[in-house]
């Protein structure tokens, strides 16, 4: 009898434990929707009142290391940026979607995070309607759009990590367009009269990164040896789709800053092995190859390529274990410099300039993914970024590319050809080289809904604090920056600013805003919206400098650094 009592008590205890376990998260989720509700109501009532009070923010001096000296609203429709150094790429940078303009009141109301990440409020062709986490994001046509209005009434973003599933959905007709068909599916799509394939040129780079704070990668000769140990031709020939090319340097050939005639180390496994033996790395070196199992334009076959690199390393006697990480965790770990061994990562162009590639990865403001930076590269990049004339800039980038080859922070492997596929009846379908498709410009055969199926779910929709193209593309439907890239060519064109001009030495930039632009919540665009949108990113001590995880990776990458950073 006693044992029965005990087991009864025990089972009750277990049940209670389980209940407590379930109740704790349930209570959290139950409370969550209520908390932001009062905040959500606030931005709706964003009516401008009283006379215009121009906002401004300036750095005391330029010693903090960033590019910005000051940002000020000259009048209601004019914004002036003063820079510490000349920046010829400034228009291309401000056109980027990480620097989209938010309504100042909405920024305040959301506290710089929270709702801002869940419910973007922009000026774009599409209004955000709903985000069903794990399933889809729904957008609706903005009837008050200042420019050419969207053709499909509704735009739906969906995602699937499996290229086979994306193709099946396109073939079945449940979606109108898919991103990144599998390399082996290119031929299938081209042979199908119901589908069309739009290819992107390889304005990207796939590289094998090494962090120089972990031995033996702290030894430059060792890194150079590994650069000789990888047969890049073999990887591109076997595992990349048509339209791809072997990388000779970090810069893709079609983007300014590419050095003609520069070639990477020749594949020479014997020499590599000899150097590694001289440096005491071999025999018996064990390391890891870390990657995320997601398909990107620069790496269409991550698992297969990782295994091929593993096999190539095995050929010179290096044992490499393959480690697969979750995409977000992988990026964060790489940026914090926590990955020992090799990591497989890549980069796609956001705007066509060397600064987007070299400064972001090897500049003084770059992340710790390659460990400690190289001051001689910084110097060359600083020189290149501050000259106005492309002919004057090019030699500095030639030097930077040469130095990167010497220091080998990473091994450039491929510029991956990739593309998007659409139903044949989608008019105006295109695949943007920088992954910034505007679906409002496409006509899906007269249907009023366009369904887009991409690789992954955005982590958040406040793109000041996102780096993943999957998030940026979604932001770009809703949000707009001062300038924009022309679809197709990538040239910088007017957007929220109808015109812009710079002084002779390219340190003062004045943007004149378009009249009568309204945000989706009804607020009217003015210069203060622009100033605050930039200041919350620039000033690390600003109360609205919150974001999703607060890293705001693009801002220091492109503009040198934060103000008031610790």
């Amino acid at each position: 009898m006693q044992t029965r009592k005990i087991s009864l008590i025990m089972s009750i205890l277990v049940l209670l434990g389980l209940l407590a376990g379930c109740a704790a998260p349930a209570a959290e989720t139950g409370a969550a929707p209520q908390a932001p509700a009062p905040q959500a109501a606030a931005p709706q009532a964003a009516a401008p009142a009283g006379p215009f009070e121009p906002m401004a923010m300036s750095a005391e001096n330029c010693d903090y290391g960033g590019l910005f000296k000051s940002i000020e609203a000259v009048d209601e429709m004019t914004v002036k940026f003063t820079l510490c150094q000349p920046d010829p790429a400034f228009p291309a940078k401000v056109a980027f979607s990480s620097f989209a303009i938010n309504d100042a009141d909405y920024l305040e109301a959301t506290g710089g995070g929270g709702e801002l990440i869940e419910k973007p409020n922009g000026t774009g062709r599409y209004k955000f309607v709903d985000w069903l986490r794990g399933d889809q994001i729904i957008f609706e046509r903005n009837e008050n759009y200042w420019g050419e209005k969207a053709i499909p009434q509704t735009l739906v973003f969906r995602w699937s990590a499996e290229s086979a599933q994306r193709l099946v959905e396109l073939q079945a007709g449940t979606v109108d367009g898919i991103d990144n068909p599998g390399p082996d599916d290119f031929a299938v799509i081209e042979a199908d009269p119901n589908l069309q394939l739009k290819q992107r040129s390889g304005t990207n780079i796939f590289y094998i990164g090494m962090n120089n704070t972990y031995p033996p990668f702290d030894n430059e000769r060792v890194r150079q040896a590994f650069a000789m140990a990888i047969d890049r031709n073999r990887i591109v020939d076997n595992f990349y789709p048509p339209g791809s090319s072997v990388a000779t340097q970090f810069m893709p050939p079609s983007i300014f800053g590419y050095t003609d005639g520069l070639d990477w180390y020749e594949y020479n496994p014997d020499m590599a092995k000899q150097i590694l033996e001289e440096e005491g790395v071999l025999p018996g070196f064990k390391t890891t190859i870390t990657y995320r199992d997601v398909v990107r334009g620069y790496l269409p076959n991550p698992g297969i390529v990782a295994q091929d690199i593993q096999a190539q390393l095995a050929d010179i006697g290096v044992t490499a274990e393959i480690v697969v990480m979750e995409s977000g965790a992988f990026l964060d770990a790489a940026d914090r410099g926590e990955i020992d061994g090799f990591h497989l990562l890549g980069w796609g162009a956001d705007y066509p300039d060397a600064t987007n590639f070299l400064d972001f990865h090897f500049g003084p403001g770059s992340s710790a993914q390659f460990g400690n930076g190289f001051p001689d590269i910084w110097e060359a990049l600083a020189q290149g970024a501050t000259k106005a004339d492309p002919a004057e800039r090019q030699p500095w980038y030639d030097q930077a590319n040469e130095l990167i080859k010497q220091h080998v922070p990473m091994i450039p492997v491929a510029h991956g050809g990739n593309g998007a596929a659409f139903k044949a009846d989608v008019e105006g379908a295109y695949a943007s080289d920088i992954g910034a498709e505007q679906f409002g410009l496409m006509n899906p055969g007269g249907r009023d809904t366009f369904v887009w199926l991409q690789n992954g779910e955005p982590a958040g929709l406040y793109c000041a604090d996102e780096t993943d193209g999957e998030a940026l593309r979604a932001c770009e439907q809703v949000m707009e920056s001062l300038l924009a890239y022309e679809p197709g060519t990538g040239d910088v064109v007017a957007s929220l600013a109808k015109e812009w001009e710079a002084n002779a030495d390219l340190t003062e930039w004045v943007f004149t805003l378009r009249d009568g632009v309204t945000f989706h919540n009804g607020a009217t665009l003015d210069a203060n919206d622009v100033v605050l949108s930039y200041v919350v990113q620039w000033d690390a001590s600003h109360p609205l400098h919150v974001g999703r995880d607060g890293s705001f990776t693009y801002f220091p990458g492109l503009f040198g650094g934060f103000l008031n950073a610790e």
Partner: protein
Amino acid sequence: MSTSAATAPTAVEPIFNTKPRGLWSTALRRLFHRRSAIVGMIILAALIFVAVFAPVLATHDPTKSLIGVENVQKRQGPCIHLLGCPTDQPQHFFGTDGNVRDLYSRILYGARLSLMVGIVSVGFAILIGSFLGAISAYIGGWTDSIIMGLMDIMLAFPSLILAIAIVTVLGPGLINTLLAIGIVSIPVYARIMRSSVLSIKQQDYVMADRSIGVPSGRILFSNILPNALTPLIVQGTLGIAVAILDAAALSFLGLGAQPPTPEWGSMIGQERNQVFTAPHLIVFPGIALILTVLGFNLLGDGLRDALDVRQRS
């Protein structure tokens, strides 16, 4: 399983008329009279043969990429010279995979891995599980309540989810997969052992031992355990099939065997997006898995029918 039972009765002979035989020889006789069990045994014999002689049977190194070694494309379909494949092309019985490795050789070596995973993890589970079950039943009282309570908690989780949780904590890899699958299978064997021991404990011969003062440990190990083995053997055989499937599922998810190890589940997982363009990469490992699991299931069913005295017609 009902179909195999239906074919059986004609083969069973009444044992009263024959000379008395031991339990095991009777069981073996009965086993060999079941066609399905024989099929299972043949499959398993073939599998064990393949696993043991994989280096001899394989045509290529299972982890070696053939880029630059042979003139062969990645994900090429099967090419068998006897079946009309042009002789100027290199022969690959099951084709090549995405890394240009010979799929046939990989599947042969995969048999080693799957068998090892199944037998080791179930062996581990049986050892620990039967020990816990036996102690629990023999001692009873508090010990019984605590051990069986724990087992019930573990049984409350779906086994694959629990295995995923364990592997996530321990980190992916083959050894951790073995451990995870072993751990989640413990409760089943503990329960079986407990119920057998509980019933055997009341048998006259155990009572007799006890009355003449044989030590408890000796009673448990020399009298009770041997008689409680039958259901464990049956469950263990069936359990190996489940363990192999679970290991393949974990590897499919990238948590089990790590590349370039030729594991059937991870082979399917890696090429899952090529199901339309290169179906042989999914089909052949899939067939290998199906055959293995089928073999263990058929044998397990046969063993149950043969060993379980009560089920006899």
